[in-house]
């Protein structure tokens, strides 16, 4: 291979330089640094079985792989991840800003003030949105944030065993991840069926649910997986009757118009933060949002940034309340979280400031307006809304013919009782023409 200025493996040393460094510390050859590794463990064959590519080659290969993604038509897929407008300003100033992305967790606050302040502003934005007192500095994604919320309530309760009531209209993947997290723990996961007609969760169904032990948590999502708006006040009050904590799973932009978790009486609010203008990346640039009432502060999972002073009395930021965390408390920590999703959090915090309350409301209104146009144009001969309760910007339709060839989400694999149902999601990026196009596809199905 022709040596390049990048060096093989991005190692800047030439062979001669490696030799010289080895000699300088008294080694005959560079490979002698491995002298403590038992010889028989050394791999017999090169594991990858191939040579390195040039940068030019990999760019071409990447382009080819990317070209296999279908994006010649507008999508109406949502279900937790949304095709929102991604502001170029935030991509440039945050996602692709190396001063942010090539740093590690801000262990040395004096050399990491930018990251810390960015996270602090994110926490402030999330508290404003949810109305709750405290936000952490992010978790991995919405589903794991829900699991952490339930574990947080469990840890804060005096009980060693009990039950968690989860609406069946909570995202199926969130319920699945929660089930995995709880699988070794003495908490029964009890699903509360949604109302077959309305598609909503009835507070009375929550209230009537019976469990063997105390109910630790009640979980509902708003708008729920079907896009239907829930009576979160009613559900939270049913949770109170059980003396359980209430977890509100939210979609961030919707809180510009829907009752905040605080207003409904929720204790913890979690969300998938991708819908705060982050690019989709196949669901792989996620953001776990987690906010709670003050009384849970000492039990919060993950990093928290606090504002303080430096030795000159100037405002400064640092990671704080670390006695909750794994590096100090080890097996007694409130969670095992170490690396979180800082870059996404800073981005989300900036998105909130770029759009503000009015902008977020426009996102919701525009998305809702497209859904209105869709529902207005939907001909009962072909398809009709499945549920009677109102949606916000996603709706389940029942179709006479299969729509699996269209960019909408079939629900039958998640809900056996919804064989002919599809979740159709709208965002502010969809146009009237997009909606008309979908309608005509449905009528031609």
């Amino acid at each position: 291979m022709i040596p390049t200025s990048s060096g093989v493996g991005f190692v800047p040393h030439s062979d001669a330089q490696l030799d010289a460094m080895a000699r300088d510390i008294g080694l005959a050859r560079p490979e002698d640094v491995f002298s403590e590794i038992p010889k028989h463990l050394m791999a017999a064959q090169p594991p990858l079985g191939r040579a390195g590519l040039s940068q030019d080659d990999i760019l071409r290969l990447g382009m080819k792989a990317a070209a296999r993604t279908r994006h010649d038509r507008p999508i109406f897929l949502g279900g937790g991840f949304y095709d929102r407008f991604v502001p170029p300003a935030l991509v440039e100033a945050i996602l692709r800003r190396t001063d942010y992305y090539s740093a590690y967790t801000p262990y040395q606050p004096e050399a990491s003030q930018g990251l810390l302040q960015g996270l602090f502003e994110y926490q402030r934005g999330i508290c404003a949105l949810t109305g709750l007192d405290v936000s952490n500095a992010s978790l991995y994604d919405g589903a794991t944030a829900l699991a952490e919320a339930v574990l947080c309530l469990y840890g804060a309760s005096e009980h060693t065993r009990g039950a968690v009531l989860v609406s069946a209209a909570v995202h199926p993947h969130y319920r699945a991840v929660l089930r995995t997290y709880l699988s070794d723990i003495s908490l029964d996961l009890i699903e509360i069926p949604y109302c077959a007609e309305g598609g909503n969760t009835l507070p009375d169904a929550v209230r009537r649910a019976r469990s063997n032990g105390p109910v630790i948590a009640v979980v509902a999502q708003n708008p729920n997986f079907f896009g239907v708006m829930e009576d979160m006040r009613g559900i939270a009050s049913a949770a109170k009757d059980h003396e359980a904590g209430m977890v509100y799973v939210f979609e961030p932009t919707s809180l510009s118009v829907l009752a905040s978790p605080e207003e409904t009486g929720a204790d913890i609010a979690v969300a998938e933060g991708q819908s705060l203008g982050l690019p989709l990346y196949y669901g792989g640039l996620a953001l776990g949002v987690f906010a709670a009432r003050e009384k849970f502060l000492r039990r919060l999972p993950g990093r928290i940034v606090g504002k303080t002073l430096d030795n000159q009395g100037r405002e400064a930021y640092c990671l704080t309340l670390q006695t909750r965390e794994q590096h100090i408390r080890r097996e007694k920590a409130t969670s095992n979280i170490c690396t979180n999703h800082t870059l996404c959090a800073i981005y989300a915090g900036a998105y909130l400031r770029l759009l503000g309350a009015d902008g977020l409301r426009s996102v919701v209104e525009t998305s809702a307006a497209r859904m209105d146009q869709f529902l207005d144009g939907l001909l009962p001969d072909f398809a009709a809304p499945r549920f009677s309760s109102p949606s916000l910007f996603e709706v389940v339709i029942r179709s006479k013919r299969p729509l699996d060839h269209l960019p909408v989400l079939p629900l039958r694999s998640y809900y056996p009782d919804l064989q002919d149902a599809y979740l159709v999601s709208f965002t502010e990026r969809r146009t009237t023409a997009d909606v008309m196009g979908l309608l005509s596809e449905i009528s031609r199905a």
Partner: protein
Amino acid sequence: MSGLFHCASSPRVERLSEGLARRAPLDLSVLPENDLVRHHVNLSRKNLCVDSSFYPLGSCTMKYSPKAGEAVAAERGFSSAHPWQKPEEVQGVLHVLGELSRDLAALTGMDAMCLYPAAGAHGELCALKTARQYFRLKNDPNRTEVLVPENAHGTNPASAAMAKLQVVVVRMNNRGRVDVEDLRKKLSARTAVLMLTNPNTLGLFETEIDTVAKLVHDAGGLLYYDGANLNAILGRVRPGDMGFDMIHVNLHKTFSIPHGGGGPGAGPIGVKAHLAPFLPGPFLVQESNRWSWTEADSRSIGRFHGAHGNFLNLLKAWVYLHLLGDEGARRVSLAAVLNANYLQEKIKPLLPVPYGAGRCMHEFVASALPLKDETGVSAMDIAKRILDEGMYAPTVYFPLLVKEALMVEPTETERRETLDRFVALMRTIVEEARTHPERLHDAPVRTPVGRVDEVRAARNPVLK
């Protein structure tokens, strides 16, 4: 609105019922686009990062992240792929995931990979739950103990606790390796897993790994590899060949993806064949050149991520491994370990390296204890003084086994000149400790803020 997108209004939103609607005002301290960009550009400048500075943060492998990864990630076919698109519409995405799985399995000596975990700690929990399920279905449910060496990373015991496993601490011997006698005593029919990183957190290769593996397996337990420290052995020794049954790898360390100032990272796990059915589903499968997802059966622990893991980062690792090839992989470990040994030998005359008698691997741990006893200057003071010279500081006070620890990991992407500059700085600092200790207690003075009052932050939390 400012024209970010075409707006429409909806009576549906205007007519929301009392019970559903938000009442409280929403104050998000809006900034115009221009000012917001300026705000963040200026904030970002208040950080040291790998692209600006030497970043010898031990256990974090802060190597250069190739920009080719960023370039490939910018492709619209990746950035706009929706996680619920049908497999035939995202074959390129699935191809990347499939190839990466295969490569990671080959490099670690494992049979099956799971790419869902979003970080190292997430991978640990995933693997421990997988192990528990394995024992449960083998009708051996009383294996509920996880053995961790006393110098293990904090996430190891914390993950064990989240899987409701009891932590049993195994002592280290005076050579900085697992004390085999103590291990023997602590292994029992209750042992589920021994979690180990090799090289360990002192930067030392566990030379008795064969014995350790045999003891654990003879006791009926599984051997778990914390892959945070894989950089030292990349392309040379495979955890699978050392007897490990499971592993997590931090792609944000060895595999060069940028750490994002704290994340997102990615922490895929790998397992030997006997553990594969218990991994989280759905599984990625390839049939006659077509990739798709297939649901796991009831042996699986269930889903572990809301979508399919941190695809953006998995993609960057795919790019990196294609750039490396076998020769590159071996070059990485060679230069990483040589750089660390070079630095260790140069630092030793300045600060003792308590377990530094032999060869270190990718990192080493120096101690400021004697210097502190002599001058009052602590490891933290040294770290802060380093920041003043525009370099990031080593990891301090970890691992706990070394008092006043400074854990130094130079990585392979640093030139000798950079290492020499670091050594010169450490020499100056040690001299200053003797002549002007106050300069170290007062450091840093050239960073955007001075020494931050962390005690005050915790006493009076201001969090928003």
